[in-house]
């Protein structure tokens, strides 16, 4: 039997990165007896190797808790732990759509940060009831009163009943459980109506196959029922119904207000569309739930195997990862400098880095990543609009009417003393300030920034100019026309396609020169001198020269040395695969790799 609606509470835990969401989830699971002390580990819901290693949440997780409240009643609490990083905002939105309320956590030593704001607004827009929680009060530096005022002033929440806890020690966590029951609304829904379940998430489990996370709005989802996906029209027989506690527990049905999983012999995750409405085939609902906007990749780059022989492996590995993460895109790409590879799209730079690391670690691949770029809209003279994912594909400028680039609205919160440096950085990156306010003693600036200036090394620069004290969040704004040019890099007059990039005309020369100078140090001397040039069309904007090799002969060579030298030659023959021919010179692929690395 499903639980009575009045005894269900569904909530997401949202916060800025590292403010303690996953740690609170740990305490809640422990207090409700979901796991024994022996089964417990820190941030137990962060199960991916990379999540554990980096101490961050990448994938939202759901857990059902059984809580006996002060009123003597037992409640079903469905908790959704969400990621804090801006790249995974999409995960947060989906979780919010499955709940009626949110716990907004704020680190009482740090205060409101950029993602605190962003996620609080997401929760407010989702009509959530919000329980503000000040965390880490066990620390001496905690200033709950001051931070409460910040929350009130900056986020605009009533903090009179904000809780003060330590997710780490467990202090005050019981008050969170009580507040969930008393402050959050119970879900509504009609058990007798036609089935309407929100497809919140789907992933591939190596034992159970494709799993779907659902939130039941109306009706009852039963084991054995024939369901229909309202968007695709596909029908499936439900095999398993259950919930996570956090271990999977099978039940016979899920009723209104409940969150749980189903399996239904679905072949691939691609057959399930997140945000879709699941209904019953024999009695379909009239109308689908609103669903979600699809996530769109905003950062693109090329991924190439260092060893050309690993191209097929890379394809298989990407396909496997894609089973669990449909938010990245990939398409084959061929480069003269780097060989065969893939053009891939990601939700952001962290997402890119995570996928790249998973490919290298879980699939043992050696990869070259080209400089990240954004999606441009090319308006041709013929009047059509093309999306450009790869600088290499940019049409000849004579065919282009104008180019649009994506802009973002960025929020940066930074201590006053670093404000000047942050403003300079944003201005250098063509930013336009839209607002400057204060969060206590810290400045909160809003900037409109071109995304292509952010994907280069903006995070690193921001971190270094603010000594790590700035927090950053953004949302995509609109496309706008820009004076953009493609800069090509030529070695001995031949194009190194993988190094081409699109940049605002005002930055073309500086960036071009930087690459030429860098390559000059990376390309080993050869018998002939090598000209390295940066060009816009036929126009050379920067150049450097690698002078010819002068001496490389081994001074002495007796007896056994010859065999040693022959082995070196054999190694060079193997290494030949990693050499690329440019006119009369060969350049080791590693030089390009290094050039790309320091650029990224």
């Amino acid at each position, binding site marked *: 039997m499903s639980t009575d609606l009045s005894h269900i509470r569904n909530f997401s835990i949202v916060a800025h990165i590292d403010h303690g969401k996953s740690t609170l989830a740990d305490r809640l699971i422990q207090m409700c007896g979901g796991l024994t002390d022996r089964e417990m580990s820190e941030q137990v819901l962060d199960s991916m190797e990379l999540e554990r290693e980096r101490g961050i949440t990448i994938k939202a997780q759901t857990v059902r808790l059984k809580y006996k409240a002060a009123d003597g009643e037992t409640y079903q609490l469905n908790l959704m732990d969400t990621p804090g990083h801006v790249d995974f905002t999409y995960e947060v939105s989906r979780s919010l759509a499955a709940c009626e309320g949110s716990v907004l956590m704020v680190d009482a030593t740090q205060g409101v940060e950029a993602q605190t704001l962003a996620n609080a607004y997401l929760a407010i827009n989702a009509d959530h009831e919000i329980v503000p929680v000040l965390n880490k009060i066990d620390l001496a530096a905690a200033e709950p009163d001051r931070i409460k005022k910040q929350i009130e002033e900056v986020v605009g929440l009533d903090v009179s009943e904000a809780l003060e806890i330590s997710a780490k020690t467990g202090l005050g966590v019981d008050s969170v459980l009580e507040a969930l029951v008393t402050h959050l609304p119970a879900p509504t829904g009609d058990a007798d109506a036609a089935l309407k379940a929100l497809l919140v998430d789907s992933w591939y489990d190596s034992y159970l196959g494709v799993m779907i996370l659902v939130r039941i709005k109306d009706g009852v989802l039963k084991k054995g029922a024939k369901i229909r996906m309202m968007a695709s029209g596909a029908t499936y027989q439900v095999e398993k119904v259950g919930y996570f506690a956090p271990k999977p527990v099978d039940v016979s049905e899920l009723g209104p207000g409940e969150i749980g999983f189903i399996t239904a012999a679905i072949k691939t995750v691609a057959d399930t569309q997140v945000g879709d409405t699941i209904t019953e085939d024999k009695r379909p609902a009239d109308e689908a739930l609103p669903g979600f906007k699809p996530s769109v990749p905003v950062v693109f780059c090329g991924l190439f195997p260092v060893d050309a022989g690993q191209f097929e492996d890379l394809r298989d590995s990407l396909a496997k990862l894609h089973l669990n993460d449909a938010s990245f895109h990939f398409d084959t790409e061929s480069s003269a400098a780097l060989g065969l590879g893939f053009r891939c799209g990601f939700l952001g730079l962290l997402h890119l880095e995570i996928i790249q690391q998973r490919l290298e670690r879980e699939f043992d691949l050696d990869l070259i990543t080209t400089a990240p770029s954004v999606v441009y809209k090319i308006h041709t003279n013929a009047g059509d609009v093309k999306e450009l994912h790869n600088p290499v594909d940019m049409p000849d400028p004579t065919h282009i009417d104008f180019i649009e680039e994506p802009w973002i609205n960025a929020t940066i919160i930074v201590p006053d003393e670093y404000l000047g440096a942050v403003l300079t950085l944003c201005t250098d990156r063509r930013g336009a300030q839209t607002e400057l306010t204060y969060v206590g003693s810290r400045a909160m600036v809003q900037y409109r920034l071109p995304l292509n200036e952010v994907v280069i090394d903006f995070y690193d620069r921001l971190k270094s100019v603010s000594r790590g004290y700035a927090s950053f969040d953004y949302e995509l704004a609109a496309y706008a026309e820009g004076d953009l040019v493609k800069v090509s890099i030529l070695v001995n007059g031949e194009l190194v396609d993988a190094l081409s990039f699109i940049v605002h005309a005002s930055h073309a020369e500086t960036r071009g020169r930087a690459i030429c100078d860098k390559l000059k140090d990376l390309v080993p*001397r*050869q*018998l*002939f001198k090598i000209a390295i040039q940066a060009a816009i069309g036929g126009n050379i904007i920067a150049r450097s020269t690698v002078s010819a*090799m*002068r*001496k*490389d*002969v*081994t*001074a*002495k*060579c*007796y*007896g*056994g040395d*010859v*065999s040693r*030298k*022959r082995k070196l*030659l054999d190694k*060079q*023959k193997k290494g*030949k695969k990693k050499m690329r021919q440019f006119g*009369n010179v060969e350049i080791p692929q590693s030089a390009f790799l290094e050039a790309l690395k320091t650029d990224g």
Partner: protein
Amino acid sequence: MPASGISLYIHWPFCASKCPYCDFNSHVADSVDHHRWRRGLLAELGYFANETKGRQLTSIFFGGGTPSLMEPETTAALIEAAKTHWQPVDGLEITLEANPSTAETKRFQAFRDAGVNRLSLGVQSFRDSYLGFLGRGHSAAEAMDAIRLAAATFSRFSFDLIYGLPGQTADDFGQDLDQALQLARGHLSVYQLTIEPGTAFHRDAVVAANEDTGAEMYEMCQQRLTVAGMPAYEVSNHAGPGKECRHNLEIWRGGDYVGVGPGAHGHVTGNAGTDSIYQIHQPERWLAAVEAKKHGTAKRQALTPDERAEEILMTGLRLTEGVNQDQFRALTGLELGDRLDPGGLEKMVEGGFLVSDDVGVRVTTTGRLCLNEVLRQLLVA
């Protein structure tokens, strides 16, 4: 393709002290049992002689280590044995490497009596500060005395110089060359200091001259020694006409040689082709092996015609005369033209690094300076 001539290399692995730049198979021993070593070397010599019976002996080279620390009786016994095992050519060249310290110069006469007719002295520099830096046990004055004594004792002699020391300028090296030119008689070896893995210099991260300084010194050396009538006949070896070290010349041309002693290397061609032979490195282990089974071979490997061809190109192109295509065919059974990457060959000839004609291929002066890269272009297709 059994060749008729054969050279003999004998390795003496001991030195009075270990120089910080040296990666040769050289060791400092508390005491050396000269009797045992003599017997061991003679035994291995006999072993290889047996395998190459009837060949003509073209040269003997005592290398090291410091073979001038050998007892002259040992040298004499080895020379005698070699001459009986094989048929020596007329005027058989017998070279011995020597250090200029007095302990050894005292024995020059005894070595000559033993049959040595060419001495190769490790002088390295004529500046005391450099000699100190290189950890040499002799002074510049001792080096000059040793050279004069060698000139008086042996019909032929040579000495070694090292350049490209940290902080050394072309002018500094020029002064060493001035001294060398006054004392040399037809042969000189001039090596650029290389920091070899496993040496004290490597461990201490000593930084030798950079590429540009090295090239400048090399070019100066070429120019001055050519004017003085001792052009390079190999990358680091200079000689007047007919004064080349025959032993090394034959090896670089791809000739056969027997290697006796710890870490010695040999190339022996039989009916089945050429074997590359390596002796055990560690002196005591080598000696124990020889005493047990008459030889201390660690590894013996048949070279494929392709490998043989590559080796001949690698050493042959070090020589000014280059690789002769008839000789190449005789040694490998392959056509020289077929062994070179056509693209690489064309590029090297056009760039002025290589000359290719009906005699064979040889590098130009510019090409020789960048020989490793030229070889890569020719061989790594």
